């Protein structure tokens, strides 16, 4: 049987390698374009870089504003701050709500769970105008607070749903024992349950971070000037109506993707654990 096993193994590897190649192909095209100097997208089929020019990267990183201050750095900082704040707020909101849905029984519980799913169905593009008006009334336009609040509410429903599922898999005995010992609900939540739910918390944090880091339209519409823009907004400047500045766009795309990809790679083990334990119980 080992011979057959070996063939199956080899076949599996072959398939996986082919699929990996197909999967990575567009990414390689982006990399190739970022390293080239011609203004057009490398439209030929060959995916590997034909030249190694880092000028586009240099140009993108050294963008300055009118006063000569370093703009790219400022926008990078904006992205980091906004994404970070969204992550903290998103995780905080999601884990308290997820715990409530998981552990407590109260009127409106089922309605609440359904409502979470329903929020995913709202047609976001049509709601952007009422959202703009709302933020304006609250004087939150062109502020980091406003954008962070909007991003958090985008990622929270999915995170709550996922965290609830994960909390469901944590046995109740530990909590009952602690209750008997006189611990308060809050202590149980923060000292016992949260540490046990680390994989799911990691996934929640990652999702919130990604939502904020990659988002473009809302940032461009709600923020008022160069110095408050985030990185994806900057990226869009290289795309015009009549032609895209491909090398700069691709270089910017690589730069914007690196942090997220790095996080993904660092945390992927948790992804597998955190994502599905929630799913197992629905």
């Amino acid at each position: 049987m080992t011979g057959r096993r070996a063939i199956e193994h080899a076949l599996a590897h072959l398939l996986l390698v082919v699929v990996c190649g197909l999967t990575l192909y567009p990414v390689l095209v982006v990399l190739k374009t970022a390293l080239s100097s011609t203004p057009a997208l490398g439209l030929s089929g060959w995916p590997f870089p034909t030249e190694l020019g880092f000028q586009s990267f240099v140009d993108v990183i050294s963008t300055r504003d009118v006063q000569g201050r370093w703009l790219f750095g400022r926008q990078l900082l904006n992205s980091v701050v906004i994404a970070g704040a969204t992550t903290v707020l998103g995780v905080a909101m999601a884990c308290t709500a997820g715990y409530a849905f998981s552990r407590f029984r109260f009127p409106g519980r089922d309605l609440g769970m359904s409502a979470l799913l329903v929020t995913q169905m709202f047609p976001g593009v049509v709601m952007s105008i009422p959202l703009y008006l709302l933020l304006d009334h609250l004087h939150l336009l062109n502020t980091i607070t406003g954008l962070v609040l909007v991003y958090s509410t985008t990622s929270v429903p999915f995170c709550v749903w996922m965290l609830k599922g994960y909390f469901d898999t944590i046995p109740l005995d530990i909590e009952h024992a602690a209750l008997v010992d006189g611990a308060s609900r809050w202590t149980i939540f923060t000292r016992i349950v949260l540490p046990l739910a680390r994989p799911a918390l990691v996934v929640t944090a990652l999702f919130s971070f990604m939502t904020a880091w990659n988002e473009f339209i809302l940032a461009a519409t709600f923020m008022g000037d160069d110095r408050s823009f985030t990185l994806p907004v900057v990226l869009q400047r290289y795309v015009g109506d009549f032609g895209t500045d491909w090398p700069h766009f691709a270089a910017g795309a690589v730069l914007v993707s690196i942090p997220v990809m790095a996080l993904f790679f660092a945390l992927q083990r948790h992804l597998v654990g955190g994502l599905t334990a929630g799913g197992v119980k629905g």
Partner: protein
Amino acid sequence: MTDLQHPHPALPHGGRGAHGRRSRPYVGSGSFLSCCPFFLITLCAALPAGAEPTTITLWHAYRGGEQQAIEESIRRINGARADFQIVPVAVPNAAYASKLTSALPRGNGPDLFVFAHERIGGWAESGLLMRLETRIDEAELDRFFPETVEPLRFDGSLFGLPMSFKSDVLFYNTSLVEHPPDTTDELIEVASRLTDREAERFGLVYEVASFYHHAAWLHGFGGGVFGSDGSVDLETPENAASFAFVRDLVARYRVSPEDANGALVTEMFNAGRAAMAINGPWFLGEIGDDVPFAVAVLPVVSETGLRGRPFLTSEAVLVNAGTRHPELALEAALALTSDDSALVRALEGRQAVANRAVWSDPRLAGDPVLAVFRAQLPETVPMSNRPEMRSVWEPAQMALRRLLRGAATPEQALTSAQHHFRILTRPSPPEADPTPYWVALALLAAAGIALLWRRARASGVVHQIRGSLHAYAYLAPTALALVGLVFAPFVVATGVSLFAHRSGEWTFVGLRNFFWILSARDFGVTEPMSFYFTLGVTVVWTAVNVALHVSIGVFLAMLMRDLWAPVRGVYRVLLIIPWAVPNYITALIWRGMFHSQFGAINDLLELLGLPEVAWFSGFWTALAANICTNTWLGFPFMMVVTLGALQAIPRELEEAAAVDGAGRLARFRHVTLPLLKPALLPAVVLGSVWTFNMFNIVYLVSGGEPDGASEILISEAYRWAFTRQEQYGYASAYGVLVFISLLIYSRMVRTVTGEGKA
């Protein structure tokens, strides 16, 4: 990203320039400053201590050389002024128009902004622009070319000061073409000589499917957008003749590629594979340094003897009617359009500036390229700035594309364009009486409250609520945020769906919008762009996508599970990359790869000996391209979910089945799959919901091609809101219907897959 938020796919809005202005004869701030420093000192003394110059914000979408030029001219102006300082803000092109449209009515916009003239009509009607003719001397306008000033007038008022003008001209590679053609017959002859389709060389390369670039031929054949009575009339024999000409360029003389976009024109011209190109001044910044080129005025149409006249864009600085500093803003605008600032923009940004005097400067007079733009100016037709013009682009572009695909004759294409235009500009539904709606709402609310009260009393809910206060405390932050920022806007959007919005005016129309959508009033039920057709496409799109995501994800997970852990880790890492890269980036890349002539996919097909496919010319192929992209993006999620779920499945079960003689497939179907279901089903439901509303991919990859057939509900809703004269009411009604459709669809998915309640 092509035109994500911008309504005119063909319309170049490359950069706005800030014009400085310092005109000698003008009796204004210039003379004030130079004659009366004494007054200035007194003024400064009279101001409260620590008074700062007023900040005048200027928005623009320039990049590259034009951006540097405007920043330089602003620096000079700021250096010379103490009463105001101009602060420029560079806005990304894709978001510029919608950002302005959102910000201006709310008083959040800039004091000044640079924009092409064609939106003036709509904005002026909405009262967003300051009328200038009462505030400035008519003599001020003498320094500009009259052709650049006229397009800035609307309804008898002047709304902007011109900075530069743009139009198409003929670019040609001087190593291939010694003498530029002066008639279209010569053009075809020269182009034919230089075309070699085998080697992918073409005589004339330009965006043939763009109505903007087609304008030269449209006017050259004696046609135009507007009829003699001033209304839009596309179905004229002259227009048909121009369409026939373009079709011949592509299909009969075969000197132009069928499907060129801006990036392709640039690439081919730079590679020396395009002998001639028709493009505008923005092209100058994209031509490689090693390409020998020159420009010429567009040729005369041989059939009519009329010269080809492209559209003229007058780029101007406009003043926000809601600015808090009207006098200073106007001063700044005048400074930006002074001759001195114009010179800076002409020399550093290579703009074709609207100031006449600047052109006699020796440094400029010796520039042959700019001289051609100057020579083309009298032979241009300004785009109309009336609001209806904006609704011409979509139908006209579709007609051109249909013509070039061979799916319509010139006459048919123009007739359908006119029909399409009529639909887009149909008047709003008649105003409805809100009273019955208030009554119905009140009744519903009363009934709802009564029902809740009865249920509450019956089940002792009130007591339960009192006992669950701690639960509500945990929920409070999330609930508050969601209600305020998600539910509230949705309720508002639903309310908006009961209104119709035209040029800033809202009228209550009740359920008319819904009635119009559901009765397929504009487009036949089976025609693209009707609600039902789009609904069908959306359902197919969602079902196929999710099926592919799940099968590929599960398949890959099963392949990987038995491998050595570190190797599995490597594969896993590589295969989740599509998930990590922002999807609007990869959507654009995929769009480029599916390009019918020069895309990588067709390259590969050719290598494999298979026929090339015109991906975006046919409904099923466009849908396939979208699905391919979305599947690439979506399978990692399912793969990760499955991998996790597989970890929880005890191997003994499967081994026991194997011992009992079950084959691999049987083991999978009867042992593994049922154990995977609880994990997969929620993912399937969620994935379905996300895919149903997946706007980015459909909008960016196929853009709804062909002719709006591959649109899904959410992207149609977007177009109604942002690209068809801001019909927000109609778009909101569409959005509500999308929501209801999705509710029904997800309910069906849950029933079919047997997923239990959460």
